[in-house]
């Protein structure tokens, strides 16, 4: 495998809170092969968004703490980069789209100006060039009458439309990596499908690698090459999409699949993982999932499991898996 | 805002006429004496031509803006000052112990034998600034305006004693004024010498709205100065009148005079120190000390005996007075004989005793004495005639000495003793307690009141102080709605005590309802006595009688301290005014500050 476009090594991002330190991301490892899509799956609060924002360098400090680890983007460690270097990467080589298209666009500027802003900044375009290119990008993301839409304000557009604008904005500088943080969660199902479709098409056109963050395993199958499952600030399982869907190993992953309404599944009843995600202020000792896990034993309480290979490109962090207790 | 001393009638009368007054100025302190200016003496100033044209700018800090420059209707103090400077006056007042008049626009005037008629000859060739000559018609027109009730001139008193139809125009430059009877000559001359109004310009103006006529802001004038610019509440600029046709010596020697409206005393003072203004009036004693020490370039002038403070004791019971006044409505000369007397101040012995209990020297020492040089800017007062009028002022009156023991004895004799042991004297169950009102916004009077309060307390008199806003204060004085009042007069330079001391309800300035038939008789005699010496003797007698009765506790006459930049030579700052006559002021070429 060639050099991954992005590799996270033991990434830690913490937050200083009033009553302690929240270890939102606490030792994350994964890599995205160039030109491919990695999905990061997990419940809310598992640290997947914080990981993405850490890559972007958008964690405000304070209260954030860059507690360690490496973010290797094309071999360069972004954690060691200064703010100017990070900025040069941000929006240019790594772009991001967000969950809330309704609020992610500045209400007081025309969408064209907002798209053009990054172009002028990173590509040194003039206002006119940027404007032209914005129309081009709007066209690319499938917005009808782009030359007219380009001069509209966000409030004049629907949610799906705005997400397309966001995608156009993100892709305008032809980034190497696109981070999509639950881009479809806030949209209704038909629009969701259109957006996913669009992302797949554009990935082919632009050759962009994608870091796709979602809590929706159904979406993962449609877009990803690889999947990383996160729980309580850590990656608990990492595999290519086929492997993971065929043979999930970690009890948590299995739980996630079981809670998925699957039309192919014979079982009509959904299973729910008992309990809630532990507070990042006070993770349980040992395995962080043990309180919700049916297979936990003393070792799980005493020793923190690490990612171990269980097959080609498939790693799992679970004592039970290792010991074959599953 | 009112000035400290309130006597509108006399203040206005004084400023309505105009002219030059060669009273020697009295520079203050060693500084001024050491730095004796190279004045050539009044009347010998270099002419404009010798100076090579009008020079420099004089900036005057003034408390309030002018309002209306129409002489027959103006009321603001600033108006009078400006009118005096922009008009050639009818006669030229001079003050040396008494007010006398020399010729100016009136070339000469002759009284008849019994002093009831005067023939006036106008100077020829004096023009209005629009080029029209000043003639008898203008004078006649002016008096017609004053007499016309529709105009509602505040100067109607001027024509009160004139025969209807006065003045009579003899020819274009001769008039005759006729009077019903003779009275003090200076006053009569003041009454005939009112600043004229242009007949040709205003003859058709609506008299009811004369105040609103454009003339009030942009007058046609006869004097050495003209109003060049007037920004309301900001500044007024006077410049030499190029069309001036008066005597050469009267031509303006200063290029610009700016009257800068600065309502705040502190600002006026600071700008004087900074050099932003050249003249500021009414400087406080403490500040005068500092100016003398730190600012040799500012010359301090004392305007002597300009105003006085006194305590008025209301001799009538207000409630009863009010009731009786209702009964006598419409009667001009009803007397107060049947009105109930005030239980305390109705009695002369009590008033005298109270005067003995007030330490005027301490008041002067605390309020009007320099802490640095020890110089006293005041003098004990014994009458309403200013000591500046030295021929008429009764110098023989011995001021009542401070003697609390005697005061207490006198009060006991009058029946006031402390029977209940509460520290306050009483008589028939009534305490010797009263309220003294004074106007707010006058720190000197406020402090004086407090000092007197303490002194009276020492002899068992309880006095409360009520500070009242100035307009209301004056209103209540006139209505006699008070018990005791700490008030003041500006010095009137016409000798006439009628308004203040003659009995009869029409004299609204007789605040205390003072009634002494002897004094009434003396006043009546005096005002119709044309002979100056006899006249003065009568006034002196009246003053002595009044002082015996102590309707007031007379306190002190005060100097006004005026600061002027020393480059202005022949600056006339005198009892008449601080800058009513600017044409004599000049600046030596080497000291000119503002060059065009």
């Amino acid at each position: 495998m060639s050099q991954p476009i992005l590799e996270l090594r033991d990434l830690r991002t913490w937050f200083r809170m009033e009553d302690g330190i929240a270890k939102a991301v606490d030792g994350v490892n994964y890599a995205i092969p160039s030109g491919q899509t990695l999905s990061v799956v997990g419940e809310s609060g598992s640290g997947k968004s914080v990981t993405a924002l850490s890559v972007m360098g958008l964690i405000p400090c304070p209260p954030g703490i860059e507690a360690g680890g490496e973010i290797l983007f094309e071999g360069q460690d972004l954690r060691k980069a200064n703010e100017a270097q990070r900025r040069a990467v941000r929006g240019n080589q790594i772009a991001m789209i967000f969950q809330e298209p309704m609020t992610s666009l500045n209400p007081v500027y025309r969408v064209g100006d907002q798209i053009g802003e990054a172009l002028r900044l990173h590509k040194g375009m003039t206002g006119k060039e940027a404007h032209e290119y914005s129309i081009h990008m709007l066209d690319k993301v499938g917005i009808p009458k782009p030359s007219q839409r380009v001069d509209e304000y966000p409030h004049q557009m629907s949610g799906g439309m705005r997400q397309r604008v966001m995608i156009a904005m993100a892709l305008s500088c032809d980034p190497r990596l696109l981070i999509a943080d639950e881009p479809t969660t806030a949209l209704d199902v038909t629009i969701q499908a259109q957006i996913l479709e669009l992302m797949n098409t554009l990935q082919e056109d632009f050759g962009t690698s994608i870091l796709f963050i979602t809590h929706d395993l159904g979406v993962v199958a449609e877009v990803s090459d690889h999947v990383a499952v996160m729980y309580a600030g850590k990656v608990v399982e990492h595999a290519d999409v086929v492997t993971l869907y065929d043979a999930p190993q970690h009890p948590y992953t299995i739980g996630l699949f079981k809670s998925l309404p699957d039309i192919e599944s014979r079982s009509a009843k959904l299973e729910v993982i008992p309990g809630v995600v532990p507070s990042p202020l006070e993770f349980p000792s040992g395995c962080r999932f043990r309180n919700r896990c049916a297979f936990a034993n003393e070792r799980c309480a005493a020793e923190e499991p690490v990612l171990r290979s269980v097959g080609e490109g498939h790693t799992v962090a679970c004592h039970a898996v290792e010991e074959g207790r599953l | 805002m009112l000035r400290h001393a309130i006597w509108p009638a006399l203040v206005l009368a004084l400023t309505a006429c105009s002219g030059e007054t060669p009273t020697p100025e009295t520079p203050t302190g060693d500084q001024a004496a050491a730095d004796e200016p190279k004045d050539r003496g009044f009347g010998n100033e270099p002419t404009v031509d010798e100076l090579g044209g009008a020079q420099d700018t004089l900036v005057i800090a003034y408390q309030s803006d002018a309002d209306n420059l129409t002489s027959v209707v103006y009321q603001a103090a600033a108006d009078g000052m400006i009118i005096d400077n922009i008009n050639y006056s009818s006669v030229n007042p001079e003050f040396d112990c008494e007010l006398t008049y020399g010729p100016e626009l009136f070339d000469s005037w002759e009284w008849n034998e019994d002093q009831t008629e005067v023939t006036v000859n106008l100077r020829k060739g004096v023009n209005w600034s629009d080029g029209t000559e000043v003639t008898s018609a203008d004078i006649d027109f002016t008096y017609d305006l004053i007499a016309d009730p529709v105009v509602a001139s505040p100067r109607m008193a001027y024509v009160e004693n004139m025969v209807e139809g006065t003045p009579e125009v003899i020819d274009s430059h001769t008039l005759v004024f006729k009077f019903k009877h003779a009275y003090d000559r200076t006053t009569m001359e003041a009454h005939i010498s009112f600043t004229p109004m242009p007949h040709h310009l205003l003859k058709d103006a609506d008299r009811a709205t004369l105040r609103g006529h454009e003339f009030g802001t942009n007058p046609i004038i006869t004097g050495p100065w003209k109003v060049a610019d007037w920004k309301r509440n900001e500044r007024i600029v006077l410049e030499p009148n190029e069309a001036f046709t008066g005597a050469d010596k009267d031509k303006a020697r200063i290029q610009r005079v700016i009257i800068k409206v600065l309502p705040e005393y502190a600002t006026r003072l600071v700008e004087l120190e900074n050099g932003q203004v050249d003249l500021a009036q009414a400087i406080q004693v403490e500040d005068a000390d500092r100016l003398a020490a730190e600012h040799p370039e500012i010359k301090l002038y004392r305007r002597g005996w300009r105003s006085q403070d006194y305590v008025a004791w209301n001799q009538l019971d207000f409630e009863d007075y009010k009731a009786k006044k209702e009964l006598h409505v419409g009667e001009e000369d009803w007397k107060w004989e049947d009105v109930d007397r005030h239980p305390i101040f109705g009695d002369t012995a009590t008033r005298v005793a109270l005067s003995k209990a007030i330490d005027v020297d301490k008041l002067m020492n605390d309020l009007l004495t320099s802490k640095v040089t020890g110089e006293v800017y005041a003098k004990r007062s014994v009458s309403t005639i200013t000591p500046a009028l030295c021929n008429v002022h009764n110098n023989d009156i011995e001021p009542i000495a401070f003697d609390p023991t005697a005061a207490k004895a006198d009060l006991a004799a009058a029946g006031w003793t402390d029977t209940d042991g509460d520290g306050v004297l009483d008589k028939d169950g009534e305490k010797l307690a009263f309220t003294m009102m004074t106007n707010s916004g006058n720190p000197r009077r406020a402090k004086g009141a407090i000092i007197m309060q303490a002194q009276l307390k020492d002899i068992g008199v309880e006095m409360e102080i009520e500070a009242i806003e100035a307009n209301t204060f004056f209103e209540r004085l006139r209505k006699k709605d008070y018990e005791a009042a700490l008030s003041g007069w500006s010095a009137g330079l016409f000798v006439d005590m009628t308004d203040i001391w003659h009995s009869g309800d029409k004299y609204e300035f007789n605040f205390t309802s003072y009634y002494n038939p002897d004094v009434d008789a003396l006043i009546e005699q005096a005002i119709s006595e044309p002979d100056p010496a006899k006249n003065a003797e009568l006034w002196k007698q009246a003053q002595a009688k009044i002082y015996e009765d102590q309707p007031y506790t007379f306190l002190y006459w005060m100097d006004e301290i005026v600061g002027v930049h020393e480059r202005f030579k022949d600056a006339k700052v005198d009892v008449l005014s601080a800058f009513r006559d600017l044409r004599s002021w000049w600046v030596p070429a080497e000291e000119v500050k503002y060059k065009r």
Partner: protein
Amino acid sequence: MKQAGLVLPGLGHLLKGDVINGLGLMLYVGLLVWAAVAGFGRLPELLFPPADQGGFQLHPWVALVSWIGIAALCWHTAFRFWKPAPFDPEVDKNSQWRELKKQFRRNRTGVFGLHFVNVLIFLALLTPFIAPHHPDVIDVGPSLSAPQWGHLMGTDEFGRDLFSRVMYGARISLSIGFIAVAISATLGTLVGSIAGFFGGKVDSGLMWVTDLLLSLPRLVLLLAIVGFFRSAGAQSIFLIVVILGLTGWMGVSRIVRSQILSLKEQDFVQACRALGLPNWRIIVVHLVPNALAPVIVHASLAIGSTILVEAALSFLGLGVPPPTATWGAIVNDGREYMRSGAWITVFPGLMIVAAVMSFNLLGDGLRDALDPKLRGRH
């Protein structure tokens, strides 16, 4: 450790790490000591002045009672810190107030403001002991002398002790602030609740009046009123207070109205109506108490602004008539002496700032406690 407070109130708090309350309490005790040292020696003559000095005076007695009251308060607080009062459900019935209290205690600036306000009030109450001289007595020192030992804030042109004047001024200025705001809060609550409850034409009429008064510059309106009625004797402290009260109610009425509007839709009001309770009863018993918290917040801020407006009026010579020393009037007096005695202007002005600042701190704290969402807004 907590019982240390019984020896010196505040010490217990301080040792337990509650610095603000600890220092606050100790400050109160300091005031008490100051008052005692400065005033108790003169106590007999203050309480029983000889007849020739005006006889009986109420002020020293009020000060004495206040002194005892404040002492009791300090030690009571210290005691309660040591042994908290047992939970009494009756006392804490109203959860709105309990919550407010709890939230407020957490707000450090608010508590700070409260202590400051208390210090000012205590100072005003204890003034007859603390102030070394009578405010209007002249020649207690040389005139226009700079601040020095014996005349902490210097003297004015009459040789009056400026510190004493400023202290007595605090009594006047604070009382005016409190009473005027009490009037305007009552009036505003009345107008607001009527407008909110009855709605319709009554509402729009009353709100129109409110808007009308709000669109006028308040100071100019006040000047006009006082100016017009000056000659009719309007310049008494009583009228100033009333006029200030009558022109300050608009903010309260708006707040109460919006509260009532939301409250009256709630079930319990509907229930009251169904029970056939008279309208006034619903308003007075059920609506107004529930709308009161924001009024109190607004009132504490309004006291500050009322003090400012009163000072401005006095400064223009249209406030409480002299010689009564209000802060604004002293500043005005000092204007003539800016060159020779700047302290006359400086100190009363600083007192105004301190007082207004305390009330603003307190008000901000109360508001944050009431509605954490509003933090930092105003």
